[in-house]
């Protein structure tokens, strides 16, 4: 029995399958057009990644400080204080480093992409690209998504490093904890999985945030008001995607 016929409107499952197939074909075509997106990859990595390093490091630094102080507050009593190192390390590597960095970049990068692409859409620059025989997905979406996938783990790695260092400095200077004790706690429960788990999550967050920005940007309509509205939607969608993916990876990988 055919899924749909010319005489009958296709049902929801058929439409979903059709859309997924169309998106996959579009993505494959866009990815295959390397000559279009490759020149824009490094500039996007610079804009989305390198320029986001300060805000990510700022967040990670204070996250490390607060975690160290919180763990000292929590561990007063039966739990030995060197567990501050374990808590700071584990928490920043596996959860707070990727998620807080992702949320911060969802605001900065997602809004940036949605506003830029949305403005291009409402000013018909996207149509102009099509007129010039450019695939707008190759030109606009692929370099941004690839830049996000590549640079989010990089920024997250630096954020993890700085967060742990900030926690260590805080523990040594404010918590009467020696460096050896902090390092002992840091190494106590460490597994290599802790690092790659955080980096995989960060890569998926990068893909989700940039895709949400591009999607909302390309769907923008209604002038400047529509740009603002879809920018907000892009940020919200990016944050939601981060939280959903965080739960998904925790279920799958832990």
């Amino acid at each position, binding site marked *: 029995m055919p899924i749909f016929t010319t005489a009958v409107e296709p049902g929801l499952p058929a439409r979903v399958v059709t859309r997924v197939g169309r998106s996959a074909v579009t993505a494959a075509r866009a990815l295959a057009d390397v000559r279009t997106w490759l020149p824009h990859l*490094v*500039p996007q*990595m*610079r804009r989305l*990644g*390198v320029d986001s*390093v300060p805000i990510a490091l700022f967040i990670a630094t204070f996250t490390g400080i607060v975690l160290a102080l919180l763990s000292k507050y929590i561990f007063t009593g039966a*739990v030995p204080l060197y*567990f501050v190192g374990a808590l700071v*390390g584990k928490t920043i590597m596996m959860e707070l480093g990727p998620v807080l960095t992702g949320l911060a970049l969802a605001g900065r990068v997602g809004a940036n992409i949605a506003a830029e692409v949305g403005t291009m859409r409402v000013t018909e620059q996207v149509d102009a690209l099509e007129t010039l025989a450019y695939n707008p997905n190759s030109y606009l979406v692929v370099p941004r998504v690839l830049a996000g996938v590549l*640079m989010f*783990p*990089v*920024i997250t*790695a*630096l954020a*993890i*490093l700085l967060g*742990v260092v900030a926690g260590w400095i805080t523990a040594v200077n404010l918590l009467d904890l020696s460096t050896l004790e902090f390092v002992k706690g*840091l*190494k*106590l*429960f*460490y*597994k*290599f999985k802790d*690092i790659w788990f955080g*980096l995989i999550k960060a890569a998926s967050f990068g893909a989700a945030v940039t895709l949400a920005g591009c999607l909302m940007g390309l769907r923008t309509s209604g002038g400047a008001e529509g740009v603002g509205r879809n920018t907000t939607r892009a940020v919200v969608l990016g944050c939601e995607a981060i939280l959903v993916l965080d739960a998904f990876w925790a279920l799958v990988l832990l």
Partner: protein
Amino acid sequence: MKRGNEFLVGLVLLLAIAAVVGGALWLSEANIGKRETVHVARFRTVGGLTPGAPVTYRGVRVGRVEAIRLADLFVEADLKIYTGVDLPARPAVIAASQSLFGEWAATIVPRDQPQDDPNVRLMLDETARPGGDRWPGATLPDVGQLTAQAGRIATDIAAVAARVQSTFDSSAVTELRQSIKDFGAITNQLVRFTQSQTSRLNQVTGNVERTSEAVLGASQHLDATLARVDSATAGGQLQAILDNAAAGSGDLRQASADLRDILSKVRAEDQSIVRSLIAVDSVLTGIQAGQGTLGLLAKNPALHNEAVETMQEMRRLIADIQANPRKYFKFSVF
């Protein structure tokens, strides 16, 4: 601008890669450039031991747990040991929790080292039984198991305490007081009894002491007697007595031989003896029947009385003769 972008992106990428690789190696205490050898330890169960857990020998980290897998009835753990570590000749592995917070480690111990825990000895024997190049392993109880056991014990103690509380009411207190009083009375009686027994024991001791002195005196007398005997027999008297006894014994043997000769002669003459006895028997029979003089004498009282009287007269006559010889005998030479 384009070159500047590439430089910045490359710098950030290299920094991130350095942070990830360097941090991972540092945290995992990887030994870059050091070679490692893999040894397999066999356990019945590995408890909380996981891949990446440290392997220690005499308290020093010498490697890590590389992998853990099921193998027939046992669990096998691959232990990566740094080369150059001087391991015991017959190693065994004990997996145990390092602290209350769940960190586990595998500790290498010499197999010959005596283990206090009988369960550990049992597990080591069990895992060593299949042989091969696998190291035998044992697992100590987890902190959680010990805590659960302690919890059960605490529950039991609480139950016992509750029962004691329910049993130990006011009447029990009264009975306990009465028991204590009774116990005091028994103690006083026991003290008095002990005192009386002590005085008796003292008397007995005195008696024993005196008896001992008497025995000592007797012993001294015996010593003196033995000394006298010794001195008396020092001149060969004892030898003479023994010689005399030997001679007497010889005489006795001779007499015995003579007696045997007599008996043999008697046996040879038993016919004539029998005849003599028959004759004596006939004589005695006649006497008993009152035949003959002797029979009459034995049977007739008158004759017996006459004979007695005659004898009496004879004694009187002899006495008179002794008293008045001249009445009956007259000697004149001239």
